[in-house]
């Protein structure tokens, strides 16, 4: 694999600006090689739907400026789509267990919730933060706007909060017991 392909993959994966310096450090190659490859990449992307964008020393991949109209239209449509049943279900779990990790949501729903969590987060219904107990994981909470939209000051005001919350807690207990059993194999 050549340097140009590597850079393209990295920028595509990260989706946010990166400095040339950081790129050369990360790839363990000199600044000159990185610059050369970036030139080649720019050339390669000439007729593509994505372009290399540069701001000061930071570079990123983005959609072609001429296509901004359809991208805006897409964004609007995606945002205004009806929430799926999966989204509403996931949201309800986050409301009744304020600060819940993805693995517990997945366990309760029996399916993987990654895409659903993204959709909820894009619409400003939930927010994620780093799990204080494990820095490689995130926990999810309802946003302040969501609570006020629902007319509650805190999640405790939700109907049957104690009941549903303790049911989630005991599920969490079963889940961690199962995980321990698996580890002891």
């Amino acid at each position: 694999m050549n340097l140009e392909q590597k850079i393209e993959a990295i920028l595509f994966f990260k989706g946010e600006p990166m400095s040339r310096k950081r790129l050369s450090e990360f790839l363990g190659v000199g600044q000159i090689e990185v610059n050369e490859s970036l030139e080649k990449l720019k050339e390669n992307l000439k007729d593509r739907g994505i372009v290399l964008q540069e701001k000061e020393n930071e570079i990123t991949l983005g959609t072609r400026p001429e296509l901004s109209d359809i991208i805006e239209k897409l964004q609007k449509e995606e945002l205004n789509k009806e929430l799926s049943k999966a989204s509403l279900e996931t949201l309800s779990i986050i409301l009744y267990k304020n600060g819940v990790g993805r693995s517990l949501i997945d366990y309760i729903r029996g399916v993987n919730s990654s895409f659903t969590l993204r959709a909820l987060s894009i619409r400003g219904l939930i927010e994620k933060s780093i799990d204080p107990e494990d820095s490689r994981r995130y926990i999810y909470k309802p946003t302040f706007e969501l609570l006020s939209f629902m007319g509650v000051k805190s999640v405790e005001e939700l109907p049957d909060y104690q009941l549903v919350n303790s049911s989630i807690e005991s599920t969490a207990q079963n889940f961690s017991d199962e995980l321990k059993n698996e580890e002891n194999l």
Partner: protein
Amino acid sequence: MEAAETEAIKDSAYQIKTSAFEGPFHLLLSLIEERKFFINDLSLAQVTEDYLSYLNKLEEYKTDEISNFIVIAATLILIKSKSLLPNLNLTSEEESDIHNLEDRLKLYELYIKLGVKIKEIFGEKIIFAPLERKHDTLVFLPDERITKENMMTFAREALGRIPKKVFLPEVEVKKVMSIEEMIEKLTERIESSLQMSFKDFSGVAKTREEKVVVIIGFLAMLELVRQGILHVAQENNFEDIIIKKQI
């Protein structure tokens, strides 16, 4: 998974290290492979006893999964009986059971081999989807269905769908008699009456479980034949097997 499943069966002719979760095909396949056999009725007849001795061991601590093993045992015993009693006439249903078992085993073997290939490449060269894109514009786009009542209903429904005890098979199977129990019962009955019909002894089987019991009884009888206790005479192909005490 529980520790008991991985417990090896120490006193078996072959050291079988397998788990209940991996099921009867995995057991059969390892028995056949250890003897470097191909899958056919001959090799299946040869491994039947090892299979059954494993089944007996399994029953001691893992009653939940035994049904999977018993169903296959029934067909194995058919194969074994045919090899012990060459003039035993099998019904077309029994013939197709035997044929199906061979086919299923071959297919299982194929997927095991494919599984090996999957294991080799899984996680080696990953195609990564892009990370979540950061959005500059803060939006708040709720949905009129996000109400207090709806959210409670959704949460409760999700919680209600969690399987209660995921380690158990979904269908409860009646506890099936063990081979030992059956041999004891058979011996008692033989001693009390010199001659009896196999059909009398087993009753008329209707459900799958009952059929299994009949077959376990049949195996037990063959086991006794092997031990020289009984003499089995099947005088006419379609008649009952008559059980007599050997003199």
